[in-house]
């Protein structure tokens, strides 16, 4: 992958003959190198234009739903340290020079690592367990359980990976953290490394985040030079080839090994058999950014924030029709309404709240009625839409839900890795049905087909991506049945967005 990226940078595209030579120099069969080159969207193959994947679909979402990224706008409130001063994973963003280890230290940074290094590894895991930290990448898995598994596997070389593959349209919190406070993440990695016994850390950043890659590299340099990461732990930065599915930790591992980023069969879990077979902990940027706070302020402090089931700060990326989109950090348990009204200045001018899309492309739509749902993995799930990695797209009354669904379906089909039949072909069938619903041929059969395909994908796809790849669409049908019926039966778009003409 780094070799492909270098070629891409140098020549702008990758000539076919070059792949054969590259494969030979890496000792790989040409087919394997070619498969990797054609899998990642950031590599363009010369003379093969029609086979290259379309670019990411943020643009479609932006045009339909106004979901523009705003990683510069950062607001953190409602979280105070035991000494009463405001704190949180975003507290330092904008206040310090991002790469500067001195600035970070002056703001209390690397204190958590100092505390951790004074403790046995097991005690670090227990501290995180007592804080009840749940991973912020999407699944909400208890971080301590993952660490403990990796800690107890006996192996000479273990790895800690920071997952910064952030690929959700409408998610940009990781980007904000990496660009403005990378040391917080590095400190979290160093603590995780101590807890599991890893000597090697890798920050996997999607290649589109070029600026963040440079920032993190600078921070790593400063941290290493000053010995801030503690003894025997080194961190490197890996630029991923840009695929949403690489956010899946096993796909991420495959991609780091130079293979197409398709998910692996589980078990074995990465904590047992991860990167090149080594026990590997993969944690999201936000999770790692929260870890130093737990060590610094104590697990009781952390656990006291938010509801019992989901403790600590919530780090959200809010976009869509709000007055001030941006990255928002609030205590878990705040409601969606509080986030929109207090964090983002309320709805944009002339916009009325229609729905909130959460959980990214594997999430769902919540209706406006659910706006008082607390931010919490369990409460959100119960309301019908997962919290996921914290992206919220606020949808207004002028937005067509069929067109919005189609934008998600385009994304789902384009990002399907192709490994299993239900996802590879199901996402395509759902997309074609939705396109049809926006035109003159719209029919109720399309809705039934979507529901059937969604059920098949949910019950039998290979990975979490495939199982939820049509969930956004299905939720739109469930929450806004009348709007879909208007398209399917009356061939009418209530939002007057869809042409409803023969294509």
């Amino acid at each position: 992958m780094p070799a492909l990226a270098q070629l891409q940078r140098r020549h702008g595209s990758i000539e076919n003959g070059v792949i054969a030579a590259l494969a030979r120099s890496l000792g790989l069969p040409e087919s394997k190198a070619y498969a990797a080159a054609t899998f990642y969207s950031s590599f363009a193959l010369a003379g093969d234009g029609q086979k290259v994947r379309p670019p990411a679909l943020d643009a479609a979402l932006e045009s339909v739903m106004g979901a523009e990224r705003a990683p510069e706008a950062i607001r953190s409130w409602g979280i105070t340290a035991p000494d009463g001063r405001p704190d949180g994973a975003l507290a330092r963003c904008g206040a310090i020079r991002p790469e500067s280890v001195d600035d970070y230290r002056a703001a209390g940074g690397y204190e958590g690592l100092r505390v951790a290094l004074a403790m046995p590894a097991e005690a670090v895991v227990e501290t995180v367990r007592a804080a009840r930290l749940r991973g912020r990448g999407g699944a909400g898995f208890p971080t301590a359980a993952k660490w403990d598994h990796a800690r107890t596997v006996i192996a000479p070389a273990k790895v800690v990976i920071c997952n910064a593959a952030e690929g959700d349209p409408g998610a940009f919190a990781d980007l904000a953290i990496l660009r403005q406070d990378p040391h917080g993440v590095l400190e979290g990695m160093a603590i995780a490394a101590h807890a599991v016994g890893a000597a090697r850390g890798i920050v996997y950043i999607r290649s589109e985040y070029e600026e963040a890659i440079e920032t993190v590299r600078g921070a790593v340099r400063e941290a290493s030079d000053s010995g801030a990461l503690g003894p025997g732990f080194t961190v490197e930065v890996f630029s991923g080839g840009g695929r949403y599915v690489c956010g899946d930790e096993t796909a991420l591992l495959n991609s780091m090994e130079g293979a197409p980023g398709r998910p692996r069969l589980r078990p074995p879990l990465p904590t047992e058999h991860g990167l090149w077979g080594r026990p590997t902990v993969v944690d999201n940027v936000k999770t790692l950014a929260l870890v130093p706070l737990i060590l610094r302020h104590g697990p009781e402090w952390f656990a006291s924030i938010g509801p019992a089931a989901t403790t600590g700060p919530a780090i959200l990326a809010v976009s869509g029709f709000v007055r001030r989109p941006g990255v928002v950090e609030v205590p878990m348990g705040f409601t969606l309404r509080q986030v929109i009204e207090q964090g983002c200045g309320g709805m944009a001018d002339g916009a009325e709240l229609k729905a909130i899309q959460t959980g990214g492309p594997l999430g769902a739509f919540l209706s406006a009625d659910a706006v008082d749902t607390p931010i919490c993995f369990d409460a959100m799930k119960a309301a019908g839409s997962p919290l996921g990695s914290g992206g919220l797209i606020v949808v207004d009354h002028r937005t067509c839900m069929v067109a919005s669904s189609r934008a998600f379906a385009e994304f789902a089909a384009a990002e399907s890795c192709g490994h299993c039949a239900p996802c590879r072909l199901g996402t395509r069938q759902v997309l074609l049905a939705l396109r049809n619903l926006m035109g003159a041929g719209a029919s109720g059969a399309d809705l039934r087909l979507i529901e059937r395909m969604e059920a098949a994908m949910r019950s039998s796809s290979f990975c979490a991506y495939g199982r939820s790849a049509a969930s956004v669409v299905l939720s739109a049908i469930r929450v806004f049945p009348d709007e879909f019926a208007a398209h399917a039966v009356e061939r009418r778009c209530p939002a007057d967005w869809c042409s409803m003409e023969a294509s």
Partner: protein
Amino acid sequence: MPSITIDGMPVAAADGQTVLQAALAAGFDIPHLCHHPDLSPGGHCRLCVVQVDGGPLSASCQLTVRDAMSIATDTVPVREAREAALDLILSAHPMTCLTCASNHACKLQTVAAQIGVDEARLGLLRPLVGSVSKDESNPFFIRDPQRCVLCGICVRTCDEVQGRGALAVGYSGAATAIVAGSDAPIAESICESCGECVDRCPTGALVHRESRPPTREVRSVCPYCGTGCSILLGVRGDRVVSVRGDADGPVNRGRLCVKGRYGMGFIHSDQRLTTPLIRRDGVLEPATWDEALDLVAERFAVSRGSAFACIGSARCTNEEVYLTQKFARAVMGSNNVDNCARLCHAPTVAGLKQSLGTGGGTSPIEDLAKAACVLVIGSNTTEAHPVVGAQVRHAARRVPLIVADPRETDLARRARIHLRLRPGSDVPLLVGMARAILDAGLEKATFIEERTEGFLPFVQAVMAMDPEWIEETTGVPWSDIAEAARLYAASAPAMIVYSLGITEHTHGTDNVLAIANLALLTGNIGRPGAGVMPMRGQNNVQGACDVGCVPDSLAGGLAVREQAGREAVGRRWGVDLADTPGLTVMEMLDAARSGSIGALYVTGMDVAYSAADTARAQEAMRAAGFVVVQDIFLSGTAELADVVLPAASFAEKDGTFTNLERRVQRVRAAVPPPGEARQDWQIVCDIARRMGAPGFEFTDASQIRDEMSEVAPAFGGIRFDRLEGDGIQWPCPSVEHPGTPRLHVDRFSTPNGRARFTAPAYRPPAEAPDESYPLVLTTGRSLYHFHLAMTVHVAGLMELNPEELVWLHPDDAAARGVADGDLVTVSSRRGSLDLRSWITDAVSPGTAFMTFHFYEAPTNVLTQAALDPVSKTPEFKVTAVQVRRAGDDKRQ
């Protein structure tokens, strides 16, 4: 053992089994497309979903059994999920079954029938059939991407079974496709055309060009290399139309290489000999069998004793070769009987017999899977013994592989250490390894003490060769030699695989002895995963030597000099046998040149072109008083004969072949011989009877086998009726004996039971490069060919490898102004050839490489008849040559 229930019925499962494996084993058929018993789970098709403990669905192919698991295979959610997944797969698949080559053999049809397809329901899905056209680049199979269901079986087969990696799953989403190379025609990729993926493809995406099923199948043994793969010859009418690997085959477990699967076209070649030929007025003309046999009997009758020489065939069955040497000895009274092993593995027989007591490979091939380290030296196993090569590749993914070879072979590229030695410097290299082992104290002292002799003189001789000299002579850095030695000695058990790169030297026997020394030093003989494995070249070269087709011993390795054994055989045959060893192949040719051979009888060997120094061999053929050649084609040798007798091919005869692990396996007639061709044993009997000799009244090959069991104690228990299963590895002294997969387990077969270390001695190759002939030419095999006959009659193999090329290093090519593909003249002190060049850094500077498969450029025109003094094997592997652009003045 976990116990689970499937659909309410208790099922015993094995630990680590998947639910799908447990279900299939218990007779519960769960629909599946991407599962294959030989391969790791894929998880692609999702048709095998089941409901676990009444909860969510799970793909049974990737679900490991747990005790007390309750599996339901046919609930409503299961059915709905399968129907939807099937509909999706069918939406992307052409519905043109009757014109598909896989019709009726298609697993998609099977699962569609199992799950059920509703036309109206399926009709709601939009057709997603791809538009990529067929790839017909390979001569043996066709790829049709439209019919591909992306089960990944072909990719996993190439990775896991063949170890090649020619295929990958490229692109993503709906564009996902199987790619070869950079999505190029597969013939341009590194695909080895083994056809394993074609055999496993569940649909019509990969189909053999000959895809109509045969009407019957006959189990036999592949006639190419010495691996001994079990095959099923598919027959329609009187023609062999297909070959399948026999899944029960003990050596190959269903696997085949390109020659084994697709190389049988020679059987029905219109070039086959169908009548006897007699030279009349200088021209070979068709004759009747009576005419030919009368002439042969008459001429043989006046050339008995030392005036008669006979070359048996390592391509024929044991029974036939046995009968050939019996004819020479009993009827013609001559020990001048030999076979092509003289040109390849005679040093193995001599060397291993001297050091270990038996001149054969010590271990079964399956031991490669048990080895903790594999050392491959002088063997391009991938191309010469492909099915073993694939197993070495498999081992290399698990354990350290060390390859010693002047060329960068396929295995060298996968090796932990590649010792790129100078051609002919094997002894110093192996001594260097022994020295490094001794220096590091890694020798196995108890083994040496208890089971060997001659250790001290060996150590003294080893210590006399110092590392600087070894480094200089081999061209390999001492650190690499020491590291390879450490790996080999410290990883127990370790196996050595070697072949003609070791034996075809003037110091071939010394090389073999050095290999045996290394194995003895580390105790790597006589236990699973250890041993010394010579890769025998011809399908039955092991057998040809075993049954006595050599000048110095009788069947079962009884030396002709040993009175008791010789007399026992003589009594059985009713003759007195000569007690002096006869001439070897190269000596026979020399004797013929000097006019002392009155009759030369050559069966199934192209000796005029496969012996070193073709001009000299041809001269010998012309000088011999009377030459009879018995073959399936009019070979270059047959063209020089006085009488040519048409023989049956392996597919037309019953008998046995012995593979490189001493396994005797049954060969069965599948079709009748063409025209008037006869089986070789019948021809020998015909000649003997015509000469009035008793003891050749056989009517069936099994009768010959029975006589052999009586004559040779080592084969006492090997009879046709015991060979129906996996065959038997000799020694097998009685019908109760199970055979001997592994030699030397408790005692070596030397007289005192101890193996012998041999003090190494170094002699340089016979011919050193000089100003006139500055390059060293080495020779070897191509994957797509065998020797000269057979494969050149298979059109597809000729398409994949149509001509001889001389491989040159870029530096040597540049120095001569030779561009890739240029016509060049390669000359040695003996002759010269014009052929095209291939410029590659797979050969070292100063060396060149050629195969030896084409009459248009017969490589042995260049090689020399310098012999190993012990085994009399020529030095094919080191020839000093010059290469120039064709037409350039030699003085330039």
